[in-house]
């Protein structure tokens, strides 16, 4: 049967098992919206800004093992989506974004709402396509989903001109994809895996450093088995939190700029480091010149060869799917008669435990007068039993959430790590809540970030999304203020948030419940009440200490050992 390009587009999404399509209509996608109207399998979620559509699709993908899907119109629809696409790209999130384009005959004429979508998004997508013929729509969308999900995941854009979406052709959905130039690695090299196993068994001061790749490849179980089998300390990056259970004694906390003292010191002093689905990011290992102080061997396991030896020299590179590589590594280790040296391991753990004491752990001075932001996160953790989905925006609140909410499961911590996109938290929470109805979804944010996509409170109302927004309102762009305090002589240039709205009234205006919490003693009762309202979105405006800083902190450009632990506590 002949179908229009628009009908084919939606039919492809059905074939891919797409539950939700996050989008915003416009001229170039009118045919596609018409096709959406005439079916009920793919549910469309109407956001209030295209950036939010992409973040919502992103949150949906991060909290599940599915591809997130967004639909935007040409021109400003696409440019609004770019921040969301770049956010997904930097964190390797599987996503397909469909954009409308002006008709093929108008391309290049500076037509109304025309931008070069493929050109603008090229540096921030895994791949993109401009579909010039209706016959190519189905195969292109098939390829897009395959590319988004396989190998190192990432966003893929499919740009469809308006005339192409109205032309008709026979619908055939390809059963399989073959892209001759694209062959993501599956299993790792067995010889390299055996080499790595031997190196691990002979290590005296080993360290396991696991990143977002563990979460993306659903390899938490394999990672956990590996860490327990070997008895080594394990750290997670910001993106990897939940990849290894935070309540386990072998977990030394998050590493990096705001990581624990013990995690950073163990990174600096280990003799064998195994990096698993992590990329030695500048916010994670600090100044690369200061990183390899002690001679050490590095084993790096990653699906993307270009992540290996990008910032640091690697001794044993293993390219492959983490789940397959870790499974094989576990088999080799279990089959070996050799075990890690018990005496050396005891000495190493003694050292790590000493760092735990020296570092003093994550700590802050609580107050009965003013709400400490860390206390809010601790209370959130206590009341949700560590089982909530927590999305965050970007800044101090993000770091406190990462530090004080102990994630025991993967895909529960949803944040923009690579791009650091303010405005991510609320729309991402919408995607998470839709994927997990009935589960607790908390959006930890600040008064700065929340205002970057606050219009989505309207979307939450329309679709009855009972997200709990915890805004740590300190009337400052807190992380900017912190850097200005430390590195710019207390000159708080443009970091004070004046003329803030009354967030309680604002939440109410959108049809939600607003709460303002000023006293530490009100934090827990307010949160209890908020979480008891299972069907309501509750916006909690916590007025927190404006002077609080995030510690520990490795200043930008320094090595991981050059850590500022905390102010006088």
């Amino acid at each position, binding site marked *: 049967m002949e179908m229009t390009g628009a009908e084919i587009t939606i039919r492809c999404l059905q074939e891919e098992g797409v539950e939700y399509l996050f989008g915003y209509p416009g001229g170039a996608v009118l045919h596609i919206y018409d096709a959406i109207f005439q079916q009920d399998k793919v549910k469309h979620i109407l956001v209030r800004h295209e950036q939010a559509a992409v973040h919502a699709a992103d949150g949906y993908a991060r909290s599940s093992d599915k591809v997130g899907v967004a639909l935007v119109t040409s021109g400003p629809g696409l440019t609004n989506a770019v921040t969301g696409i770049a956010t997904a790209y930097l964190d390797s999130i599987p996503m397909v974004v469909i954009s409308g384009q002006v008709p093929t005959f108008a391309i290049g004429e500076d037509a109304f709402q025309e931008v070069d979508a493929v*050109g603008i998004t*090229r*540096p921030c997508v895994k*791949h993109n396509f401009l579909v010039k013929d209706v016959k190519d729509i189905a195969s292109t969308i098939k390829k897009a989903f395959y*590319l988004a999900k396989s190998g190192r995941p990432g966003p893929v854009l499919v740009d469809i001109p308006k005339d192409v979406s109205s032309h008709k052709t026979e619908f055939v959905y390809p059963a399989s994809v073959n892209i*001759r*130039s*694209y062959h993501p690695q599956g299993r790792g090299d067995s010889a390299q895996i055996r080499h790595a196993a031997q190196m691990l068994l002979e290590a005296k001061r080993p360290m396991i450093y696991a990143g977002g790749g563990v979460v993306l490849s659903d390899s938490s179980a394999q990672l956990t088995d590996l860490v327990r089998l070997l008895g080594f300390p394990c750290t997670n990056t910001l993106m990897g939190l939940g990849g290894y259970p935070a309540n386990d004694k072998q977990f030394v906390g998050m590493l990096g700029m705001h990581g624990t003292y013990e995690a950073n010191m163990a990174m600096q002093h280990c003799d064998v480091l195994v990096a698993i689905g992590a990329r030695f990011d500048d916010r994670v290992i600090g100044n690369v010149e200061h990183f390899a102080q002690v001679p050490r061997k590095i084993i790096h396991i990653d699906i993307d060869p*270009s992540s290996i030896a*990008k910032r640091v020299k690697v001794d044993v590179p293993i390219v492959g799917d983490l789940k397959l590589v870790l499974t094989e590594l576990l088999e080799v280790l279990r089959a070996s008669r050799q075990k890690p040296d018990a005496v050396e391991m005891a000495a190493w753990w003694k050292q790590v435990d000493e760092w735990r004491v020296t570092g003093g752990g994550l700590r802050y001075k609580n107050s009965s007068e003013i709400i400490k932001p860390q206390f809010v996160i601790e209370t959130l953790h206590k009341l949700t039993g560590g089982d909530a989905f927590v999305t965050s925006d970007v800044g101090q609140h993000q770091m406190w959430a990462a530090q004080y909410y102990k994630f025991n499961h993967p895909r529960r911590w949803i944040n923009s790590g690579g791009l650091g996109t303010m405005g991510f938290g609320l729309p991402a929470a919408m995607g998470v809540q839709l994927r997990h109805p009935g589960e607790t979804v908390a959006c930890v944010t600040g008064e700065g970030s929340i205002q970057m996509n606050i219009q989505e409170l309207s979307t939450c109302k329309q679709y009855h999304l009972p997200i709990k927004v915890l805004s740590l309102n300190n009337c400052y762009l807190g992380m900017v203020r912190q850097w200005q305090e430390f590195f710019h002589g207390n000159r708080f240039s443009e970091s004070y948030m004046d003329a803030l709205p009354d967030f309680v009234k604002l939440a109410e205006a959108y049809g939600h419940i607003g709460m303002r919490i000023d006293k530490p003693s009100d934090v827990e009762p307010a949160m209890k009440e908020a979480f008891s309202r299972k069907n309501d979105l509750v916006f909690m405006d916590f007025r927190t200490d404006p002077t609080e800083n995030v510690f520990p902190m490795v200043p930008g450009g320094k090595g991981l050992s050059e850590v500022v632990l905390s102010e006088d506590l």
Partner: protein
Amino acid sequence: MRHIISLLMENEAGALSRVAGLFSARGYNIESLTVAPTEDATLSRMTIVTSGSDAIIEQITKQLNKLIDVVSVMDLSEGEHIERELMLVKLRAEGEAREELKRLTDIFRGRILDVSDYTYTIELTGSRVKLDSFIDAIGRDLILETVRTGASGIGRGNRILRL
């Protein structure tokens, strides 16, 4: 160090800009870049001359391989290879100098493609060094116009880059 990287990629709109964009986005050098379809019209062959430390060249080849449109990549400078560049150069050729320019062209095994009362247009093929030497030998004063293609390269013997 100078490297000459050869690659096969899908002969599709936008493929060239993916490669060029990669180099500018990641701050890699491009000395020259040539591209044209191969005997298989679905494939283009590109030769890129670049420079950088071993670590940077390793990243360049990995990043190129990561582009979905790129089918295969070879660093020709890792082994024996042949490299050629074509230059068209228009010279002021007047009076006694005409004979001398003709001789120099012969010495460099160039060909005079076009002659006018006042000019010669010469075609010369060779390595970058050879073309540079020719320009030096002629002297910049006489050169009216130069067009160079940038290097194209191919491996020697069994070093073959194909699908």
